[in-house]
């Protein structure tokens, strides 16, 4: 009985979306970006979100990433209902539980690789020495040990994206959200980044959610969902 309960707990999804709706505007100009999304994502999954532009996949991504709140529905992240949280509480959730990887890297141009990687720790109250220690450690893991003092404009695209991944991982988040992470990279570098993601997912158990419209890259994921007109139209989950 006790054993069974534990099993249920373990199978509790990391992310649970229940009938999520997102409506922009009101009256005749009203736009339903999401109209009733239900989704369960378990810990350790590597999922790709596919869909044409305007399908609502960015909105879905923003809601999962706690950058935005759903208009209706319930969102449980790690068993915490985040759907009605205030901005500052959402900021804390993003800081501790979510890592972002963007298409445009979104690194601060005037900061070194290390400086960029350390930013999330600044907002979780980690002191300067530990910030540097953990920053160097994670950069080493990304194969950037000799490049920590370089600024983004002195790094290649692939290196920039690895810095961004290091930044996403530094606070040991529950999930990493990647928005077109290979969109700004050449094919070979893109493949390297996907390989890195797969390794992180397999070896470190990092839960990965990746938005892409490249089916080839999406095929690398263990699960794919297709979003169209604000709804999930296909889910390859078993």
């Amino acid at each position: 009985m006790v054993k069974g309960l534990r099993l249920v707990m373990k199978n509790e999804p990391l992310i649970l979306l229940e009938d999520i709706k997102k409506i922009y505007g009101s009256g005749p100009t009203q736009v339903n970006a999401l109209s009733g999304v239900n989704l369960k994502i378990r810990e350790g999954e590597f999922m790709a979100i596919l869909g044409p532009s305007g399908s609502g996949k960015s909105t879905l991504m923003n809601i999962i990433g706690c950058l935005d709140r759903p208009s209706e529905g319930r969102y449980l992240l790690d068993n915490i209902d985040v759907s009605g949280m205030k901005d500052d509480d959402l900021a804390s959730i993003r800081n501790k539980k979510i890592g972002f990887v963007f298409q445009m890297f979104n690194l601060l141009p005037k900061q070194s690789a290390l400086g960029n990687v350390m930013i999330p720790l600044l907002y979780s109250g980690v002191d300067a020495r530990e910030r540097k220690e953990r920053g160097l450690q994670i950069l080493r893991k990304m194969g950037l040990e000799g490049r920590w003092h370089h600024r983004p404009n002195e790094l290649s695209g692939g290196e920039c994206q690895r810095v961004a991944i290091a930044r996403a991982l530094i606070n040991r988040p529950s999930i990493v959200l990647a928005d077109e992470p290979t969109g700004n990279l050449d094919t070979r570098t893109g493949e390297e980044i996907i390989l890195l993601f797969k390794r992180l997912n397999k070896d470190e158990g990092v839960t990965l959610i990746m938005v892409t419209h490249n089916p080839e890259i999406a095929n690398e994921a263990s699960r794919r969902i297709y979003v169209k007109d604000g709804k999930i139209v296909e889910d390859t989950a078993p």
Partner: protein
Amino acid sequence: MNFIEFFRLALASILENRLRSFLTMLGIIIGVVSVILLISMTTGFREYLVRQFMGIGTNLIIINPGKTETKGLGQPGFEGVQKMTTGDTMALRRNAYALESVSSITVGTADVRYVDRERKVMVIGTDEAFVKVINIGVDAGAFFNADDVNASRRVCTIGYTVKNELFGSRNPLGEIIKIGGAGYRVIGIMEKKGTFIGTDDLDDVVYITVSASQRLFNTDKLFGLRAKARSAVMIEEAKEQIRIILTKRHNNKEDFTILTQESLLSSLNSILKALSVVLAGIAAISLLVGGIGIMNIMLVSVRERTREIGIRKAVGARRADILFQFLFESMLISLIGGIIGILIAFIGGIIISQFLPQVPPIMEPWVIALATIFSGSVGIFFGVYPAYKAAQQDPIQALRYE
């Protein structure tokens, strides 16, 4: 995040844009320099006035005919006023024991001639007590004594300018000069006093006995009396004694005014204080303009760094984190500007005192403290709105901003 982190962040950002930061500071720098220099210069001028007034004599009491309730400088009108005479001087000498000495004063101008050189000069008629009451010494020869005064001897002492103008390098002692046509023997040369408040030349003067001067100007009226109290604590007592004695002599009418150096200074002081407030107020406007400059630049900076704000928010910055980041930046810009301004004002003060050695600007610590606090507050005040705007950014919009 603690304040040290915000401070570091702000400093790094200021150093990244050195030129822009400096130009932004310029308004504050100019404001602080002008506020400090203007206040310091009026302070210096006030100190100079105090020195001048206190330099006239120690524990000096000035008694002028005519009653005025107004404190301060200026000669009250003579109408309906009983004249002041040497009899008053005698009465005070006899009865006012709080006084150390009393001296009669007459003032007029006359042509003073030596051989073929002539000059219009201020003629002061007085008595032997003058050099005790007023802080002035004799350089050569001697001042006239009580005998000279009582006998109305035609003797005189001359100021430095008069000596130079009439005698040049010759020794005037024992020579006869003509004052208003009558001959006077020069028995002393007064020490050099320079100018008073930068106007009257205190050395362009001839001193003769009061009786001789009354004859010269054909009057028995005095310009006034000058007295010296025995000590500073006795000044008030002395004033009271003077009041009682002279009122009694003047048919029980208080038709004279008693002034002290303090009372003269206090009215001057209040004028100068008002002046320095006005000047500092005008200078403070430039601080205000500087503050608006900071606000302007910070608004541009917030817009420029929209993406940075988005990134920071995405990775967990709360509203307060962004707010303080920008607020610290504007405060620090303003504060550094203030400190640079203080340093420049300090150097400026030294330079000014080279050109105006008599009236050196005096920089009081409270002015520096005020400038520091004020510049910091300007930064905070004008930084609040831009920082608020930064903190209000929506992370999704901010991340999309190009």
